């Protein structure tokens, strides 16, 4: 096997005892986190995302399962993006209130990942624990047309997962889901909203802080 010849590194193969400092040169822990890499083509992301959707689609029976999986895929991104953003932008204050963290996600996190703020952040009337972020054209849906037989599937469930990951990471555990809504009869294309419902424990803390 030629593969072996090339890939066998010239160092002990017993991985449990290999000191990782041997590969220190390439270790993330030794590189500055603030260094911002060049941006990449949207095409690269779109092809990757489309393939992820196709991959997940073959592993589910129902549209709702596909949304769950996309949400989970995004969750891991959101968890990490929040921490990274604080370092990249050298932000020196944390957000400890609900409206502030949601605003932070709508503006800073969105710009960091998608190069623009989300369109709106709104409170659901009559629901203390529910908010939504509205976005006319979520980046991940730019090239996606969902076939009729997929019902109300919104692939921006991935972005809902990013919001959930960032919120959870910041200490605001919530459920987040993506939906299409038709704002006006006239417009053919629906806008997307990300429904955010905060957990009871988060609401209790918020009440104390507001108290």
């Amino acid at each position, binding site marked *: 096997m030629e593969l072996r010849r090339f890939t066998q590194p010239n160092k002990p193969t017993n991985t449990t005892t290999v*000191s*990782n*400092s041997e590969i*220190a040169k390439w*270790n*993330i*822990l*030794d*590189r500055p*986190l603030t260094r911002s890499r060049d941006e990449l083509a949207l095409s690269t992301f779109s092809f990757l995302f489309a393939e992820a959707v196709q991959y997940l689609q073959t592993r589910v029976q129902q549209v709702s399962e596909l949304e769950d999986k996309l949400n989970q895929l995004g969750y*891991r991104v959101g*968890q*990490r993006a*929040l*921490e*990274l*953003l*604080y*370092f990249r932008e050298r932000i*020196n*204050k*944390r*957000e*400890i209130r609900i409206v502030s963290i949601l605003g932070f996600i709508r503006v800073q996190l969105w710009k960091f990942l998608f190069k623009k703020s989300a369109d709106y952040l709104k409170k659901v009337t009559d629901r203390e624990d529910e908010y939504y972020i509205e976005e006319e054209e979520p980046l991940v849906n730019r090239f996606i047309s969902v076939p009729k037989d997929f019902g109300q599937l919104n692939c921006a469930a991935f972005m809902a997962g990013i919001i959930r990951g960032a919120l959870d*990471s*910041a*200490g605001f555990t919530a459920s987040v889901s993506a939906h299409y809504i038709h704002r006006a009869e006239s417009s053919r294309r629906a806008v997307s909203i990300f429904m955010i419902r905060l957990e009871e424990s988060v609401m209790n*803390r918020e009440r*104390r*802080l507001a108290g």
Partner: protein
Amino acid sequence: MAITFVIVSSKDQLLFEATFPPASQTDETAHLREFILFASLDLLEPIVWSSRDFYLKAIDRFNDQIIYGLVTASSCRLLLVSDGKNEEAVKNFLQDAYELYAKLTMNPFYDPGTPILSTSFQERVQKLGKKYFG
């Protein structure tokens, strides 16, 4: 005087522990320092949710031991107990350790909130300890 450093998840799970110098892990005061750190967790909670700062300074003391805390953007707690004679070094250490932690969490193979097993992380924390606490 030995120093103990721990990383505790937002759900009060111990994720990582180090002592400086490393040998002091086994000394009899190590247990005490660990105990002091965990006792301070309850105190920490209201501070985390009332201040917007990352570095929370001294949050508790026990006899001559002072507990310092830093909370990350992902609500993870970095705590350190020392004799309080090197406050500036503690602050710098915690901030550098935070950056290491942030980089660690970028790794797709590390799930935030789970114990930190990376040996390279361990090595670098020790290096930091040496840098700031001799």
